C-alpha cells in the first residue's frame, strides 16, 4: 500500500490529531533550534552561549519569545499599514504549510489506527512545497516594500531577486529526483529510496539542492536580504514585537522545512541508515520518526556550521554564482540523467551505459582542464606589477625581512 492509500483511510479526528502534532513539533523544533544554533555557534567561537535560563539554557528561546511579545509594537508613519501587518502573517503561515506533505514516519499505530505520520500525500507534493515557498517569499518582499524606508526596501528587492534566481536552480535539481523516482509525491519518492538514497545516486542534484536551499532560506552566507553590515536589519528593520517574532519564527521553521524536504528527497526520508533496516520496526514503527529527526538535525547542524564558517557573499558574486554556475550545471546534469534513464529503460546493454558515462566523465575532465588553463592565463595577464615604494615607513614584506636580516647579520 502506498502512503496515499493509507492516508485515504484516515478518519477526520486522526487528521486533526496529526495536524496538531505536526504544528507542535514545528514550534518546539523552532524553540530548540534557536537554542541549538546559539549554543553551537558559541562553541565554534570559543564561547558558552545561553546557559542561564533553565538547564543548559534550554528555556532561553522561550524567554526571548516572551520578551519579544511584551515589547512595544511600532508601525512607522510612512508604512503602508495593511501590507505592513499582512507581511509577517504571510511569512509565518506559509512556513508551516509545507509540512503537510512531508512523511515523518513509516507505518505506525496512532491511537489504535494504522497510519503514517503525513498529513496528505498528493501526487504533486514536491511542487506543492515549491509553490508554498514562492508564496512565502511575498512576506519578505512586502515587508520590505511596506516599511516605507530605504534599507527594508533594498532588503526586499534583494530577497525577490535572490528567490527568483535560486528557485530555478532548486527546481532543476529536483527534476533528476522526479526522473529517477518516477513521481512527484513525497511518499513515493521516499519509497523509491528503499535501496539507494538519492544523495548517492544523484549526488550532483543533492549538492545543487543543498546550496540553493541555503539561498532560499536567507541564511548565511546567502543572507543578503538582512545583511546587518549593510542594511541594518534588511527587510525587518522597521519591525518590532510580535510582528518581528513572526519573521523570526518563520525563518527557523523554514530551515526545518527545507531540511525536512532535503531529508525526504535525498536522504531516504524516514528510512534507517543502510544496514540498520531492522530498527525501522522498533517501538511499533515509531523509531522511524527518530531516524527522520536525526537527519533533519544533521542538516540543521550544516546550516549552523555554514553560518559559523563562511563570510557573507557580495551581492554580484551571489547572483553570478546562481546564474552562471548553478543553473547551467544543473541543466547539463539533467541532460545526463535523462539520457542514462532512457538508456536503462530501453534496455540498452551495460557496455553502452558505461561507455556513455565514461564519455561524459572524459568530457567534464577535458572541459575543466581547459577552463583551468584559461583561468591561469587570465591570472597571469591580470597580475599587478610591483607597487611603487610608499613615501612613509611601512612594515617590510616578509620575503625582504630575511634578506635584510642576513645583510644586517653579515655586517
Amino acid at each position: 500500500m502506498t502512503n496515499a492509500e493509507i492516508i485515504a483511510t484516515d478518519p477526520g479526528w486522526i487528521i486533526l490529531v496529526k495536524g496538531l502534532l505536526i504544528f507542535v513539533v514545528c514550534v518546539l523544533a523552532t524553540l530548540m533550534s534557536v537554542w541549538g544554533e546559539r549554543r553551537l555557534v558559541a562553541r565554534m567561537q570559543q564561547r558558552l552561549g545561553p546557559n542561564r535560563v533553565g538547564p543548559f539554557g534550554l528555556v532561553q528561546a522561550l524567554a526571548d519569545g516572551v520578551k519579544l511579545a511584551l515589547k512595544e509594537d511600532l508601525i512607522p508613519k510612512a508604512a503602508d499599514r495593511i501590507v505592513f501587518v499582512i507581511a509577517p502573517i504571510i511569512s509565518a503561515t506559509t512556513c508551516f504549510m509545507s509540512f503537510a506533505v512531508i512523511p515523518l514516519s513509516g507505518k505506525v499505530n496512532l491511537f489504535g489506527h494504522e497510519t503514517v505520520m503525513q498529513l496528505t500525500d498528493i501526487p504533486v507534493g514536491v511542487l506543492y512545497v515549491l509553490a508554498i515557498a514562492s508564496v512565502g517569499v511575498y512576506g519578505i518582499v512586502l515587508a520590505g516594500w511596506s516599511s516605507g524606508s530605504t534599507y527594508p526596501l533594498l532588503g526586499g528587492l534583494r530577497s525577490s531577486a535572490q528567490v527568483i534566481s535560486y528557485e530555478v536552480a532548486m527546481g532543476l535539481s529536483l527534476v533528476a529526483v522526479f526522473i529517477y523516482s518516477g513521481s512527484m509525491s513525497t511518499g513515493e519518492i521516499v519509497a523509491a529510496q528503499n535501496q539507494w538514497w538519492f544523495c548517492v545516486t544523484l549526488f550532483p542534484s543533492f549538492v545543487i539542492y543543498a546550496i540553493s536551499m541555503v539561498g532560499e532560506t536567507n541564511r548565511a552566507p546567502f543572507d543578503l536580504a538582512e545583511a546587518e553590515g549593510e542594511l541594518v536589519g534588511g527587510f525587518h528593520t522597521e519591525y518590532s514585537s510580535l510582528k518581528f517574532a513572526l519573521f523570526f519564527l518563520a525563518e527557523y521553521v523554514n530551515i526545518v522545512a527545507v531540511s525536512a524536504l532535503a531529508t525526504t528527497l535525498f536522504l531516504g526520508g524516514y528510512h534507517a541508515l543502510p544496514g540498520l533496516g531492522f530498527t525501522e520496526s522498533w517501538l511499533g514503527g515509531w523509531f522511524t520518526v527518530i531516524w527522520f529527526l536525526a537527519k533533519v538535525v544533521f542538516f540543521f547542524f550544516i546550516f549552523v556550521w555554514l553560518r559559523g564558517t563562511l563570510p557573507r557573499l557580495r551581492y554580484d558574486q551571489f547572483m553570478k554564482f546562481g546564474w552562471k554556475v548553478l543553473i547551467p550545471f544543473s541543466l547539463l546534469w539533467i541532460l545526463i540523467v535523462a539520457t542514462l534513464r532512457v538508456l536503462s529503460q530501453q534496455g540498452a546493454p551495460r557496455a553502452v551505459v558505461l561507455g556513455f558515462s565514461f564519455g561524459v566523465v572524459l568530457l567534464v575532465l577535458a572541459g575543466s582542464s581547459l577552463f583551468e588553463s584559461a583561468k591561469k592565463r587570465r591570472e597571469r595577464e591580470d597580475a599587478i606589477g610591483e607597487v611603487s615604494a610608499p613615501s612613509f615607513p611601512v612594515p617590510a614584506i616578509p620575503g625582504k625581512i630575511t634578506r635584510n636580516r642576513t645583510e644586517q647579520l653579515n655586517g
Partner: protein
Amino acid sequence: MDSLALEVGRTLAPEAIMFWILAPLAVVSALGMLFVKKAVHSALLLAWVMITLAIFYIAQGALFLGIVQIIVYTGAVMMLFLFILMLVGVDSSDSLVENIRGQRPASITAAIGLGGLLVSLIARSNLGVEAIGLQDANSNGNVQGIASELFTKYVWAFEVVSALLITAALGAMVLAHSTSTKSRTAQRDQSIARFRGASLATAAGLPGSGVYALHNAVDVPALLPDGTPAPLSVSATLDARGDMLSSKPFELEVKEVEED
C-alpha cells in the same frame, strides 16, 4: 445557489461551500485590482485572484494545474512587482487627471462592448454537461497524462512557443542593454587605483564622518589631526544636496596655552 450545485450534478457540498466563499472574494479582489490607486496593491490583489483560481482548479481535481498556477503566477506577479518599483516608483499612485482628450468615453464604450460580448458568449455556454473522456485521460494519473500529451502530441507546438519566448527575451535584453563607453570599475580596479594613485592617503578608505556630542554627525565633516575639516568624510550625495554642515559650531574651543 443550491440549484446551480444540483444542476452541475456532481458538485459535492464542501466544494459548493468553498465556491460560494471564495468566488465572491475573487470577484471583489479582481474589481479591487482595477480600482485601487497604488500599483503595488493592484499587483497583490492580482496574486490573490490567481491563488483563488488555483484553489478552484485543485477543487476540480486538476491538482497539477492548480499548483503550477501558483508557482508560475506568484513568480510572474513578483516580476510585476519589480517592474512597478523600477518603472513607476516606490509608492506612486494613479493620477485621475485625464491626459488624452476623449479617452474616458472611448474606453468606457470599449469596456461595455467587450463586457457584453463576453457575457453573451458565456451565457450561451452549456453547464452541467457530463464530461467525456476525463476518466480515460487521467487513467495513468493526472500528471502522467499531461506529460504524455505535452511530450508527444504537442511537443512541436511547445518547442515553437519556447523558441519564440527565448527570442523575445534575448531581443528585450539586446534592446535594453546599452554598451557602456568605458568598462565598469570593479572592486579590484578601485583597489588598484587607490594604491597606484598620487597619494596613499586614502589607500585604507575614506575618512569616517565626524563624531560630535551635539550632533548626529553623518553630515558634518570630521576634523583632521591638524584641525582642518575633511570634506571627503561626508557622503557625496549629502554634499551635492547642500546638506553638509560646517563643523565649526561643534569643534572644541582650543585655548592657546600661555607659556610662562
